[in-house]
C-alpha cells in the first residue's frame, strides 16, 4: 500500500519536473536574444550614438533621428487608434446588441488582426500616400499603423470592459444613472488598467513594425528631424533593416546598437504595461 503511494508520488514529481522543464524552454529564446543583443550592441551605445545625426552614409555618428521618428510614429498612432479603439470597444461591450451588424464588426476586427503587416503598408500607400495625397509622411505612416493596431486595442479594451461585473451596471442604473453615467463613473474607471495595458501592447507592436511604414513614411536616410507631420522620418525598425541589408561595409556594432535601442524601447513599454496591470490587480475591489 505504502509502496504504490510512493510510486505515484514519484511519478507525479517526475511529471511536474518535465512540465517545468518544458515551460523553462520558453524563457530560453527571450533571454538568449537579449543577452546576444546586449553583448553585441552595448559597446556601440554612447551619448553620441543616442543623440547625434548619422554620418558617413550611416556608418558613423548616431541614430537620433530614428529614435525621434519612432517616438513620433508611436505618438501619432496613439492619437488615431486609442480614441477610435476605445470608442469601438465601448460600443461593442456596452451598447450594441447581438445582431448581424455587431457580428460583422467582430469578424472584421478578427480579420484585421490576421492581415500581414506588409499588406497594411501597401494599403496605406494606396489610400493615405497617393489617394489622400498625404505623401510619404509621419501622418500617412501613423494612420497605417493605427489601422494595424486597432484590432489589438479594441479586443483588449472590450475584454477589460466586459470583465467589470454586470451587477455594478444594474445597481448604477437602479440608482437613477443613465447608461453613459454608468460607463463613465463605474465601468470605465474599473476597466482602465486593462484598457491601458491593451493600448500599450498594441502601440508596442506598432513601434517595432517595419513593413507598414516602408512605403508610407519611413526615410532611408534623412539626417535631420522631421519638421511637420507631413514630413517623412527615419524610424528604428526601418533603419535597422537598411543598415543590416542595404549599406555595404556597415560596422556591425551600429547594427546591434540600433537593435538594442529598439528592443529597449519596446520592452520598456511592455514593462510599463506589466506594472500598470499588476498594480491594478492589487487594488481591484471585486
Amino acid at each position: 500500500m505504502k509502496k504504490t503511494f510512493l510510486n505515484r508520488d514519484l511519478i507525479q514529481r517526475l511529471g511536474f519536473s518535465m512540465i517545468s522543464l518544458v515551460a523553462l524552454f520558453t524563457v530560453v529564446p527571450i533571454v538568449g536574444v537579449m543577452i546576444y543583443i546586449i553583448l553585441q550592441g552595448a559597446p556601440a551605445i554612447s551619448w553620441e550614438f543616442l543623440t547625434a545625426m548619422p554620418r558617413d552614409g550611416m556608418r558613423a555618428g548616431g541614430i537620433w533621428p530614428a529614435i525621434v521618428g519612432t517616438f513620433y510614429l508611436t505618438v501619432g498612432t496613439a492619437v488615431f487608434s486609442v480614441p477610435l479603439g476605445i470608442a469601438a470597444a465601448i460600443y461593442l461591450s456596452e451598447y450594441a446588441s447581438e445582431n448581424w451588424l455587431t457580428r460583422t464588426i467582430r469578424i472584421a476586427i478578427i480579420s484585421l488582426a490576421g492581415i500581414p503587416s506588409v499588406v497594411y503598408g501597401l494599403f496605406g500607400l494606396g489610400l493615405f500616400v497617393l489617394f489622400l495625397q498625404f505623401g510619404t509622411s509621419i501622418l500617412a505612416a501613423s494612420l497605417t499603423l493605427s489601422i494595424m493596431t486597432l484590432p489589438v486595442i479594441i479586443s483588449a479594451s472590450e475584454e477589460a470592459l466586459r470583465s467589470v461585473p454586470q451587477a455594478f451596471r444594474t445597481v448604477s442604473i437602479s440608482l437613477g444613472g443613465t447608461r453613459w453615467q454608468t460607463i463613465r463613473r463605474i465601468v470605465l474607471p474599473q476597466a482602465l488598467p486593462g484598457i491601458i495595458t491593451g493600448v500599450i501592447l498594441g502601440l508596442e507592436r506598432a513601434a517595432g513594425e517595419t513593413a507598414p511604414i516602408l512605403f508610407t513614411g519611413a526615410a532611408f536616410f534623412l539626417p535631420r528631424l522631421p519638421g511637420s507631420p507631413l514630413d517623412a522620418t527615419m524610424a528604428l525598425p526601418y533603419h535597422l533593416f537598411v543598415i543590416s541589408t542595404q549599406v555595404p561595409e556597415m560596422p556591425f556594432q551600429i547594427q546591434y546598437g540600433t537593435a538594442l535601442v529598439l528592443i529597449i524601447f519596446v520592452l520598456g513599454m511592455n514593462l510599463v504595461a506589466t506594472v500598470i496591470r499588476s498594480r491594478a490587480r492589487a487594488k481591484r475591489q471585486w
Partner: protein
Amino acid sequence: MVENKIVIEDLSLSYTDGTESLHEISLNIPVNAISVLFGPAGGGKSSLLRCLNRLNDLADVRTVAGRILLDGVDILDPATDVIALRRRVGMVFARPVVLPLSIRGNLTYGLELAGEKRRSRLDEAAERGLKLAALWDEVKERLDDPAIALSGGQQQRLCLARVLAQQPEVILLDEPTSGLDPISTSKVEGALQELKREYTIVLVPHSVQQAARTADYAAFFLQGGLIEYGVDKELFTHPKKQRTEDYVEGRFG
C-alpha cells in the same frame, strides 16, 4: 380606508425566451406599510419588483401588458421618465453590491448623478441614509474607506442606506437578507419596521418565516400568478386557498 401608493392592474409579462413570468396580476401596495411578495422560486416575485422601477427594461422582455399606477400615474407608459422614477422607487438587491467607491461615494452616488454638487447636502444625505439603515455608528469614523472593506451584513445595510440617501418614496427589497447571518438579518428587519412610517416598502422575503414576521400585507405568488392576498398575518394563520396553506406549512417549496 387604506391609501394605495401603487396600484397594479392586470399586469402580464413575458420574456423573449418564451417564458411567461407574470400572468394578469392585480395588486394594491398600501402606503406606509410593508407589503410582502412571497412564494417559491420562479413565481414572478422578482419580475414584479423589477417592473415597479422599470429595471426590467434592461432584461429581454418581450411583452408587458397592464398598468402600474404610482400615485395614479402609469409608469409603464413609454413617456415615463425612468431616471426620475428610479429615484422615487429605490431597490435593494439580494446580493449586496457595493460600487467600487468609498463608503461615502456609494451613499452620494445617486445624488451626484442627479447633479447635486453641494458638499453639505451630500454629507447630510449620507448621514441620514446611514442612520436610517442602522449603520451610522459602525462606519461614521471611516466614511472614506473603500466600501468593499465592510462585512457582508454592513454592505447590505450600506446598500439600503444608499437607496435611503436619495429619499425615495418606495423601497423595493429583493431577498435583502438571503446572504446574511441572523444578527444582521434582524438589524435589517428592525430598520424596515422603522422605515415603514415614512416609506412604502415592498419586500420579497427569503423565507416564509421572514414573510410572516414582517408582513403588514402579504401576497402569495405561484408560477407567475397571484394566488392569494391578505392583510396582516391572516395568510399565515388562516390561508383560504389550499396551495397557500400547503406552502406556508412547508408541504412544498
